[in-house]
């Protein structure tokens, strides 16, 4: 593949430049936010607006829809677990299925850590959910994917004073 073609494709495919997670949200069906983790700068007003928009967009979808939604200049990969929507907002060229399973991986960790996690666990232990998030995601990227390693670390932290 010659240089000229490489630069054309660079323009058209924009493959890798600065793709990342923009935010992670956990919301219930009523629109209450159980976790909001932001990986880019937004004002408090903008954050509120985004939260409302995301809620509006995902709650109207059902089984016949895909788990991916175009959202502003980004896209949202989401999945519903009981009454909670887990949404990851990523760049348009990010890998949809990889993030769909990153969500599931994260949920399985929460499930293990909180012993059959339910919404209330996330409410009462909100400050711990941030710790779980930071183990698995950081700076808008996936940090650790081994459930074994993450849980081992979380249990160790749990034992500290």
């Amino acid at each position, binding site marked *: 593949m010659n240089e000229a073609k490489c630069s054309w494709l660079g323009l058209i495919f924009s493959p890798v430049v600065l793709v990342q997670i923009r935010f992670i949200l956990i919301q219930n069906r009523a629109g209450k936010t159980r976790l909001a983790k932001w990986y880019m700068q937004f004002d408090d007003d903008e954050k509120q607006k985004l939260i409302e928009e995301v809620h509006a967009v995902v709650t109207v979808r059902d089984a016949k829809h895909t788990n991916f939604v175009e959202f502003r200049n980004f896209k949202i990969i989401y999945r519903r677990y009981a009454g909670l929507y887990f949404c990851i907002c990523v760049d348009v060229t990010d890998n949809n299925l990889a993030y769909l399973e990153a969500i599931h991986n994260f949920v399985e960790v929460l499930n293990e850590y909180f012993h059959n996690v339910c919404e209330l666990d996330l409410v009462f232990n909100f400050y711990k959910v941030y710790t779980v998030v930071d183990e698995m995601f*950081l700076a808008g990227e996936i*940090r650790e994917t081994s459930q*074994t390693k993450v849980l081992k670390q979380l249990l160790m932290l749990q034992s500290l004073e």
Partner: protein
Amino acid sequence: MPAVSKGDGMRGLAVFISDIRNCKSKEAEIKRINKELANIRSKFKGDKALDGYSKKKYVCKLLFIFLLGHDIDFGHMEAVNLLSSNKYTEKQIGYLFISVLVNSNSELIRLINNAIKNDLSSRNPTFMCLALHCIANVGSREMAEAFAGEIPRILVAGDTMDSVKQSAALCLLRLYKTSPDLVLMGEWTSRVVHLLNDQHMGVVTAAISLITCLSQKNPDEFKTCVSLAVSRLSRIVSSASTDLQDYTYYFVPAPWLSCKLLRLLQCYPPPEDGAVKGRLVECLETILNKAQEPPKSKKVQHSNAKNAILFEAISLIIHYDSEPNLLVRACNQLGQFLQHRETNLRYLALESMCTLASSEFSHEAVKTHIETVINALKTERDVSVRQRAADLLYAMCDRSNAKQIVAEMLSYLETADYSIREEMVLKVAILAEKYAVDYSWYVDTILNLIRIAGDYVSEEVWYRVIQIVINRDDVQGYAAKTVFEALQAPACHENMVKVGGYILGEFGNLIPLISFNLLHSKFHLCSVPTRALLLSAYIKFINLFPETKSTIQEVLRSDSQIRNSDVELQQRAVEYLKLSSIASTDVLATVLEEMPPFPERESSILAKLKKKKGPGAVSVNELEEGKREGGELNGGGERGGDSSAIAASNAKTPTHYVHLFSMSLLNQNPMYEHSLSFSPLRPRLLICWGSARVPLLPPPLPAQAAYWLMFSQRLASMMMAS
């Protein structure tokens, strides 16, 4: 109440949260919150110094209140104090508070940076990670200034623990993205590349993200990562499922790591080294083979993980665009997914095939799936999937299937979502023009577009059809006849009236029976710009059909025209009325001669689509053709000034001059219609034949006065000859 873990208790927090949840109304909640805020305030101000546990509890409560949506204007100092505790749980809450409620007070920033510095040099991996996470989450300029030099050292030091390396890599990534000038390349960069060989997969995962970003701006610095990435990928793809135990997810070895490696490889062209390239091709073939094998598990997690890798591999194959065998295999695999029962896979297959369609190696293979894609367009229930199908039809269109595809897109347009109509219209217009062999088909297609989605047919589209009709003698009669028929529909879109009015005005004489009444019946329903266009058509009719002269003059003379409140309409009515009454038939015929063909340049429709969709809208073929051909029909004029000189010297007739001059006044607007627009700076002159000045246009800017003189002289000499 769910169990609270033994480590930190914080029973008071749990009680508070329960109280809030039990509040029956918003007012009750606010009351309870205010009570707590007052309590916390007094505790913070109190004479007794608070112990760490209490401070932690209150700061955590404040955080909870903030996350509920209430503003918090105190507590930062106490949170910063928690940072210097040697207890993990207290530090953690402190760091969490300051990461969520970022404060730009410089004194606080100094204290925070101090605490971070202490934790970074503490040699306690847990504390180091807390500090690194804080920097990664906040990523402020002050933090970058303080720590951008230190983080790379931590990252590559031999005695750094694995988990710290993971956090350091991503922390550095954050700093690089927000303050790239403060992260300087150095000795550490080659060490970072070698992290790809680390035995801790988590470290590799984090390092790849850093390297991928850094290599965008410094490709040469990091190019050794390519062969390392290929080795790593190769080892993962060929591993037995017992090798990578901690990193095997539903029987798929290290799926996220594999995806990241494939993504990193997309930053570079194919490896030059034959052995490395061979190994990579083998990898890609293995991944494609695995897609055909029976699945190891029925769980959707297994297939999603496997397919995540597959789609990323296909992206890489497309990026290289150099292995025909792989491209065709990729296409076939995607073809199978087009009919998969899972909507996600059908969606992704359509999307991926779109990029495959532009490769010369796989274009033909993609075309074989046309029937499946058309079926998707008609039957998919998720609109975003239908949209991908439409995009793919556009991408796979060529001479062999253009008529079929345009017909399908038109029929899809009849029921399409409003949000996508404009883009669909642009695409159909582009395809129709690009692949027209028979221009009457092109004319039919555009008129259908106007009929189906008139509101979304932008100016560029209907200008184009007019330009093409003017430039092609062979289709003028057909166009005139077709618009005439279209105008007879009871409810007809205004854009149809515009196109019809213009074409009949130019070529109405090519069909035997023309009815002025037909056009005029639509007149009162139209907006001002359309009416202005119609008045121009009417004066052209007087030239084409002298028998209509008195009827039309009566219309022009009526109060609703010559006393119209819109200055443009009024001006035109007056000028045209005058022109029709004092000019002889010969002069009239000359002034109202057919429009000359438009000069050729890049299609403005293509430009509009590119602008709308961004760089991804247009395929490689289109861009390259657009550059090569240049002989495409187009429109558009240059701005005034010099071009009017060229216009004047190229003019064959005064009318021709008028047309060229008017185009020179406009931005990209080929229709001389707009040149008649009123400008308060340029007083209009009425037609005054006695002094041989015929300004159908406002007088030019002073610099062009000479050309007006030439124009007047030409007309005068013409009149004297007639």
